[in-house]
């Protein structure tokens, strides 16, 4: 149970335990780098993106430097950026994220852009994600009692109000239960039509990028296995998922990071704090 509340740094250590992955093309990369590249590809050019921190922040940098040069990043502290910060940041309020910002004002301003439907995509982390893409980052009640997590931050707002959201997390049965015990951030609730009935204006989960695979969501609002990461077997993913994960015939392999993407990641996270 303690793994649920491990710091992100611990999670990164865990991820790096499985690296390096070697591809036939002899390009070596870490699992975090693969996840960052996959996250970057979720960003379309010209989109307004609630960036968040950690791996998604680097995904934004990669997208800007590769296929989405016109994407704009929003941060809930009030920062809006058309260019990534000049150096690695650990929080959205670090001075390099302020210098050269497109705008630097307040939270109500960026949250207004979100609520009015202008924000295309938001990235989220979570302790748990369930079958319908609901997220828990508040608390887990298990056999060892209560585990208190930090809470929503802006995650519930992004999940409620963005046109779509993408989740990144470690893949394990603990982290992907059939139903989360607490819905911090609403996904598709109990399935199709749930968000509309709840009064949510739009949105919902579009992808869950884990340490083993990428899940997407079908018309029923339920997650399905879209691709497995290179070297990962489908059975391994199914066994590490807390419900009977739908998997069709056409399960792809998550594309490896390109040399260009890897260069963008490594130029930014020079010491590999987030991506080693």
């Amino acid at each position: 149970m303690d793994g649920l509340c491990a710091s992100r740094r611990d999670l990164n250590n865990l991820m790096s335990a499985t690296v390096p992955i070697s591809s036939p093309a002899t390009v070596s990369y870490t699992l975090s780098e693969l996840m960052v590249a996959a996250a970057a590809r979720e960003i379309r050019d010209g989109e307004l993106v609630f960036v968040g921190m950690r791996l998604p922040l680097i995904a934004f940098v990669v997208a800007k430097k590769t296929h989405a040069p016109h994407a704009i990043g929003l941060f809930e502290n009030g920062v809006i950026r058309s260019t990534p910060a000049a150096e690695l940041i650990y929080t959205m309020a670090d001075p390099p994220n302020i210098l050269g910002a497109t705008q630097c004002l307040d939270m109500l301003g960026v949250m207004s852009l979100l609520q009015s439907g202008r924000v295309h995509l938001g990235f989220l982390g979570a302790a748990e994600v369930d079958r319908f893409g609901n997220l828990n980052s508040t608390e887990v009640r298990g056999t060892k009692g209560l585990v208190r997590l930090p809470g929503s931050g802006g995650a519930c707002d992004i999940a409620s109000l963005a046109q779509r959201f993408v989740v990144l997390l470690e893949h394990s049965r603990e982290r992907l239960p059939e139903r989360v015990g607490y819905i911090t951030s609403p996904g598709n609730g109990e399935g199709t039509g749930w968000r509309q009935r709840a009064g949510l204006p739009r949105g919902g989960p579009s992808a869950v990028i884990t340490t083993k695979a990428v899940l997407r969501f079908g018309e029923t609002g339920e997650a399905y296995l879209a691709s497995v990461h290179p070297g990962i077997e489908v059975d391994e993913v199914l066994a590490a998922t807390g419900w009977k994960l739908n998997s069709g015939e056409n399960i792809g392999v998550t594309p490896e990071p390109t040399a260009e993407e890897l260069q963008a990641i490594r130029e930014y996270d020079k010491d590999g704090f987030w991506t080693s």
Partner: protein
Amino acid sequence: MSKDLSMREAIADLVPDGASVALGLQMEQMIPFAAGHEIIRQKRRGLTLIGPISDILFDQIIQAGCVERVIAAWVGNVMMGSAYNFRRAVEKDGLKVTNLTNFSVALALQAAAMGVPFLPTRTALGSDIARDNPFFVEFASPFSGERLHAVKALVPDVAIAHVQRADRDGNAHCWGNFGVMIEAVRAAKRVIVVAEEIVEAEVIASDPNRTVIPGFLVSAVVECPMGAHPSPVQGYYKRDDAFFRQYHEQTKSKQDSDAWRQRWVQGVNGRDDYVNQLGACRVADLAVKQHAYAAATEFGY
């Protein structure tokens, strides 16, 4: 009456036992650590802490036993993950937490700032955050019938804001990200401004667009250089990332946390002493290395 107080006087006068205190309002930037540490040294009890994403200052004030309730969107160590004392307090000691979201914290403060009982929003519909939460009520729009959340107004007894510079009346210049500071200052019954520098009134008046806190809302102004360390103050010092990392390592147990508090809070006699303990090398390392000034702004006519 002069508002120009020492930190000790400001906390003694304006943060009584049982007060609700909004702080950490600019999120990870300009967190009023010096003010929070003085609250700990003065052994306040029964406080309610209010904030959006709240970095390790909440953890420290909770650890010191000052807090009865937290009304916040997030409590932890932003760079590292969980904050151990907050966890222990909730899991073992029954600390009361009212879970909000960043947006709903902003809306609750903005409602209070505007003098209305609530503000409508579409956020958190269908979430468990809104369930059994006194800050959320679902209602139908009187115009369209759409389902909405009313977020209840939240009036802090005192808001503490850290800024770059202020004059002696509390008119304050701040730049960087504001988070929920502007609405919190308007919402609170009393406001403490902690400034890196007290400057002449003419300096503040020269750029009224940067005056995000008007002095007439301010009860106390405290000059406190390095008062936000280890969080950053744009144009003054950068974030001390190592300090946040070390805090994470050094507060895993209650005993270790007590030792941390003794070393950095109880065992220092105010912020000057704290800065001495940090050491000249560390302070110099955090200072601005490459200046970046905004263009001069013509207010003439």
